[in-house]
């Protein structure tokens, strides 16, 4: 009898285990409130927890999620959304036009909201009827739809948000496929299937457990010992070893972000004190001393795509008339001679992460061939951001996690009034194009405007874009239905363990 009980228990335990998806994250997410959240890794958890008005597909097209269709007004200053019927939040409340209005206003108005910048163009939101929302803008804003495919488009239960106020992130209530169960800081975040999810046919797990494991070796060890089904951010150096193991699969996608070097050319006095900031020829020589293919091979084990713009070469907004420059040491040396500084010296500020260090060393060695003396100053991340914002740097090696709309990779860094314009670059022709591309909805026209920007950036080099990393995922070979969307989110719809 006892044996039989034990057997049944064991069977039960194993089926329960089979329905849990265990995902290893590279960091512990921050607040689980879409309005306040700041980290990339937090968005991976939101992908299981909170549905958005729109989603992205593999080709970066905006596709319906909570909103089923949209229509721009003739003057492009209002966007009307039709909402999916019968959607409820995890507390049973209705996800309707009033909820959308509440959420957009919450994102825009909550003190300390990180969505404020993305939604500041919204002047008002009207709930036309239960399933129709009209978003009125102070000016046309092309990135709006793509902004709504991320946290700004995530809808939370108004009732729960009002009840818990600032503490909402401790127990978030959304309308995604899984609902929040518990979070033990730095240990795990547990979600369970929401039985009334509108698209429940696509959900094949009962639970998801997200486990932050910062050490990449340990994360991989957990996958290989079978304790995790999926890990994000596999180290490029682990790819060859895992490739030969049939029990696992590797998935990769070129990121939306980039790795680049920001050069202080006008942010502070320092810009005029070193040849790199002062003379565009020196910057050109520096870029010509770099071999992006070799950099990717050596520093990233080949797991990145070389690039020279804020979007990757396969993006529809990449300006093909401004191709990735090839290494040319002769020309670089000649430019330095013309500038009168055959051996210029500058400091490259670098975050302390090991891949950034490796990259900086390769760059240092390459630039040396042209006569540059690059000094690497590795600085703790938070401290380096502060120095960059104050203009206390000459060159700064920094990655940007990227946004689906090109404007999100460009405006804040290179518009004259961009809040993170650390380079201090301001060129009227480029600035006008950047601003105009924001209010132009037609993709062809936008691409034209971005071409103008790309040409100017290639000439002045406020940022030298280097490459776009691959998001590397590794998972159990039995896991199928994985979609590789460039935003790097792990979409749980359709995921299945065979």
């Amino acid at each position, binding site marked *: 009898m006892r044996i039989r009980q034990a057997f049944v228990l064991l069977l039960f335990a194993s089926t329960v285990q089979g329905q849990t998806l265990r995902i290893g994250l590279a960091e*512990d997410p*921050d*607040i*689980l*409130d879409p309005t*306040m959240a*700041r*980290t990339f890794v937090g968005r991976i958890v939101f992908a299981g927890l909170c549905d958005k008005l729109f989603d992205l597909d593999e080709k970066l097209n905006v596709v319906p999620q909570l909103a089923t269709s949209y229509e721009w007004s003739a003057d492009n200053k209002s966007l009307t959304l039709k909402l999916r019927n019968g959607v409820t939040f995890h507390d049973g409340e209705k996800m309707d036009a009033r909820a959308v209005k509440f959420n957009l206003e919450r994102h825009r108005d909550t*003190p*300390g*909201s*990180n969505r*404020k*910048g993305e939604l500041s163009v919204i002047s008002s939101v009207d709930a036309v009827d239960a399933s129709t929302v009209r978003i009125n803008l102070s000016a046309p804003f092309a990135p709006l739809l793509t902004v709504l495919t991320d946290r700004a488009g995530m809808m939370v239960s108004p009732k729960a948000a009002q009840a818990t106020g*600032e*503490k909402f*992130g*401790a127990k978030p209530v959304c309308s995604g496929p899984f609902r929040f169960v518990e*979070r*033990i*800081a*730095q*240990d*795990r975040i547990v979600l369970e299937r929401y039985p009334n999810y509108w698209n429940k046919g696509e959900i094949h797990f009962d639970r998801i457990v997200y*486990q*932050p*494991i*910062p*050490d990449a*070796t*340990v994360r991989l*060890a*957990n996958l*290989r*010992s*079978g*304790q995790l089904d999926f890990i994000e951010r596999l180290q490029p150096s682990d790819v060859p070893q895992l490739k030969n193991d049939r029990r696992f699969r590797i998935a990769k996608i070129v990121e939306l972000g980039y790795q680049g070097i920001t050069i202080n050319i006008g942010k502070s006095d320092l810009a005029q004190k070193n040849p790199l900031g002062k003379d565009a020829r020196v910057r050109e020589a520096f870029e010509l001393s770099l071999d992006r293919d070799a950099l990717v091979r050596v520093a990233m084990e080949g797991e990145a795509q070389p690039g020279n713009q804020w979007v990757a070469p396969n993006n529809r907004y990449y300006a093909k008339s401004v191709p990735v420059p090839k290494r040319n040491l002769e020309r670089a040396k000649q430019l330095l001679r013309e500038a009168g500084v055959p051996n210029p010296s500058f400091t490259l500020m670098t975050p302390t992460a090991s891949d950034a260090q490796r990259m900086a060393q390769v760059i240092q060695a390459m630039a040396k061939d042209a006569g540059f003396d690059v000094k690497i100053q590795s*600085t*703790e*991340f*938070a*401290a*380096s*951001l*502060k120095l960059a*914002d104050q203009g206390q740097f000459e060159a700064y090696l920094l990655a*940007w*996690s990227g946004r689906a709309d090109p404007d999100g990779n460009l405006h*804040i860094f290179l518009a004259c009034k961009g*809040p*993170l314009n650390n380079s201090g670059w301001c060129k009227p022709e480029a600035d006008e194009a950047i601003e105009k591309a924001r209010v132009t909805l037609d993709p062809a026209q936008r691409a034209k405007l971005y071409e103008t920007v790309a040409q100017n950036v290639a000439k002045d080099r406020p940022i030298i874009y280097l490459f776009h990393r691959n998001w590397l995922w590794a998972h159990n070979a039995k896991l199928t239905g994985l979609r590789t969307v460039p935003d790097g989110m792990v979409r749980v719809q359709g995921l299945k363990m065979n």
Partner: protein
Amino acid sequence: MLRFLLQRLATIVPTLFFVSVLIFGLQQLLPGDPATALAGEERDPEAIRYLRQKFHLDEPLPVRYWYWASGVLKGDLGDSVRIQKPVTELILEKLPVTIQLATMAMLIALVIGVTAGVISAVKRDTWWDYGANVFALWGLSTPNFWLGILLILVFAVQLGWLPASGYVSPFEDLGANLAAMIMPAFVLGNAIAAVLMRHTRSAMLQVLSSDYVRTARAKGLDERVVVLKHALRNALIPIITLGALEFGTLLSGAVLTEQVFTIPGFGKLIVDAVFNRDYSVVQGVVLFTATVYIMLNLLADLAYFFVNPRMRH
């Protein structure tokens, strides 16, 4: 005895005040602005302004200290700004994990360290002694994270006997809990065992050559009684001191080991908080562990009384 206790307790208050000022002051020396660090890569200027205001970062240092210290006196350590959870709650969440890990590590360290120390002292200059010394050297010179990763590769990836990392509550599943904790506890205990072994050995050697041990032997007492009852008990004082100090260190979190095995204890909590400039968490946890440390030292002093009658006079 009572006077001694009161004396010690009286010194605790100024010590804790000093510690709190130190924690608060040292943290201000960290480069980088907490609001910028919190705002992350986007660091929207308006969000930064809001954070500065919310956490009183725009006010003078003494005022900020006052905000914090007055909260602490009321038992409120503040909230984690990163995940919006009260620091007290975070501490209570991590405390059982850390206590369990520290206790298991200490038990492993005591069993291995004291035993090896006694054996190597009693069997001085034999192969037993040399073996124990080699073990101590290995324990002292092996970096924790390296041993940790090695154990994971052998016992989790290759043999599949133990989970690679993670933590399970003992109330949920005791077996799984012990399986998850044994490797990190061994890694931590191994290093401490080495230190304990060296100290036990030298203390034992000293005691074993003393007059009363010779007398005990001359009386014809069994060697086991001489070693364990007469010698070891007197040799225990430095070991208790050391053990309490090491235990205190363990309770303040084993940063690298917790990181490697992803054990959600104090070490991980504090390191993440430092990197994210989550001031209230850093302050709260350090203050808490400092208090525990001071208390443990007090307990060690009290333990002398019970172990060694001479101290009672």
